[in-house]
């Protein structure tokens, strides 16, 4: 089922409505250990739907803004990173960086501690209570929070992540650019049947154990399919596709590309974190008007 359910709009309106009932109530505490001459780091606590208290890292460059921003939406792993592993720390001198732990990830794991694998199918047989309904709300709340920062240049805000980056940009304003690497919510049920690799294997495990719930799982996943969100994505988008010929390669993602109305670039993986990573860094820098990219690249990526 790759068409949006009839109640797709209502489902997400209700989710965002619930979120709106809870003010974020952010608390910022400096983290001197991770602060440098070029950036100050804060630990941020804020409330999402539930209510549930989340945690994120906010890094603000030294100097007078406004600055472009990168928002790292919640990842599919237990660990929350300040910046992604392998990213030059100096990136924090040019961008405001905000990374958020969704409910269940480390630092946001009380009262709910997510398991990996396990999170993807937590409550998946009921769209109303599926765990990702809350995590999507968390991700939206993160972007809302970032948008309130006075140091921010609202014309240069990139949301970077997996499927959640695209979903977040579709559900709320504030993202001018998106870098998304689909992994969880593109034709999930169909693609899971074609792989034995996690995280999609979680769906196979679940359906093998609970075959009678297959239709309910498909119904839930339909509310999360990127194809359903695509028409709402207005931000300029870089889609990080898998390698050619793979489950999430450029050809496989073509229906998604065609469905997104905003300006779109597709990069197919070259099986190299260097080449793929450099492409993404260059793209973000170009979009955000960063002129001297070399100085904020990892040492081994510089010319």
């Amino acid at each position, binding site marked *: 089922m790759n068409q949006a359910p009839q109640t797709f709009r209502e489902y997400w309106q209700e989710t965002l409505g619930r979120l709106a009932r809870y003010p974020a109530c952010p608390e910022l505490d400096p983290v001197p250990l991770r602060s440098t001459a070029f950036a100050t780091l804060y630990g941020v606590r804020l409330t999402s739907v539930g209510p549930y208290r989340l945690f994120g890292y906010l890094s603000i460059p030294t100097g007078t803004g406004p600055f472009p921003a990168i928002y790292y939406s919640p990842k599919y792993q237990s660990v929350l990173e300040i910046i992604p592993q*392998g990213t030059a720390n100096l990136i924090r001198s040019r961008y405001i960086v905000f990374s958020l732990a969704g409910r269940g990830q480390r630092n946001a794991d009380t009262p709910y501690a997510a398991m990996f694998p396990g999170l993807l199918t937590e409550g998946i047989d009921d769209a109303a209570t599926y765990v990702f309904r809350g995590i999507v709300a968390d991700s939206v709340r993160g972007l809302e929070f970032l948008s309130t920062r006075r140091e921010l240049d609202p014309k240069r805000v990139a949301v970077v992540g997996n499927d959640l980056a695209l979903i977040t940009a579709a559900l709320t304003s504030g993202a001018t650019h998106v870098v998304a690497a689909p992994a969880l919510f593109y034709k999930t049920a169909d693609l899971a049947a074609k792989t034995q690799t996690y995280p999609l*294997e979680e769906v*196979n*495990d679940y359906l093998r154990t609970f075959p009678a719930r297959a239709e309910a799982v498909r119904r839930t996943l339909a509310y999360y399919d990127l194809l359903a969100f695509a028409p709402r994505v207005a931000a300029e988008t870089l889609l990080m596709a898998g390698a050619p010929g793979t489950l999430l390669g450029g050809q496989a993602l073509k229906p998604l590309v065609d469905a997104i109305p905003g300006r779109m670039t597709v990069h197919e993986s070259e099986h190299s974190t260097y080449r793929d990573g450099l492409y993404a860094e260059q793209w973000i820098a170009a979009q955000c008007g960063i002129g001297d990219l070399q100085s904020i690249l990892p040492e*081994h*990526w510089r010319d």
Partner: protein
Amino acid sequence: MAKTVPADYQCRVRKPDDFDAFWQDVVRQAAIPLDVEVVPDPLRTSDDVEVFEIFYTSLDHVRIACWYCRPTRRAERSPAIMFLPGYQMDPPIPKEWARKGYIALSVAPRGKLRSNRQFNPGYPNLLTHNIVDRHTYAYRGFYVDTWRGIDVLLSRPEVDGTRIGVVGSSQGGGLVITTAAMRPEVRAAAAGVPYLCGFMDAIELTHTYPYEEINDYLRRHPDRRTEVADTLAYFDGINFADRITCPIVVNIGLQDNVCPPETGYALFNRIGAGDKQLYPYDGHGHDGGRARHGAIVDRFFAQHLQSGQVSNR
């Protein structure tokens, strides 16, 4: 194009005079009952692979979790692979290794998800937890947890204890080095883009996390640099490398932005095994050429663990 990397790079780390005595004492302290608990996981079990959670006791009586997979159709005693995780990785269920015919153990050393009830310094933080004291530094127990994984495999009746391999990348690659060095039962090892090697060089060669945790610490405590370097010398994979005698393959990415390739070269040059092979991948970062290298690792383990003719050690 990114800069070239000297293949004869020398890391500055020196082996402490009491290095062997230190680890001998730690191993002695860890000589406690394993208390293995095996719990079937029907949710993750499929027609071709049986999945279990295993729990065991390690140094300081910390309980360690791991995933354990075995092919449904297997010989009475099968070769085994121990998979060791990356720094931020949640230890995966190693079904793919089981599908290749191995009993597969995927260890979650202390602090990882499912092994963090008694010890949980967090991420970032693990790398610098008690970094001025080798007797309580985070990796003291962390290393032992992986070595004890070999004991778990040896305790299983379906494992052929003469055909055990270890594999991992990044932190997993570093742990492969220390495990192969300390456990003579390891008959073949594949270390990818090894982390935990040449620490004090790495923090100058790159400024990315996780190594950047040490730079953060030293910026805050510059007076502790000597103590930090002294501690890390006991945990540096380069100082374990000369003890490795089993066949080993190492792959590195020449544009690795996480584990500098210079440290990979320095490590490889210090490995004691006669049967060793380095695969440097130009145009690759922390993936270490995984897409091409995976088949090489498969052939390597098939040759050393599945032929029935194991190497003499």
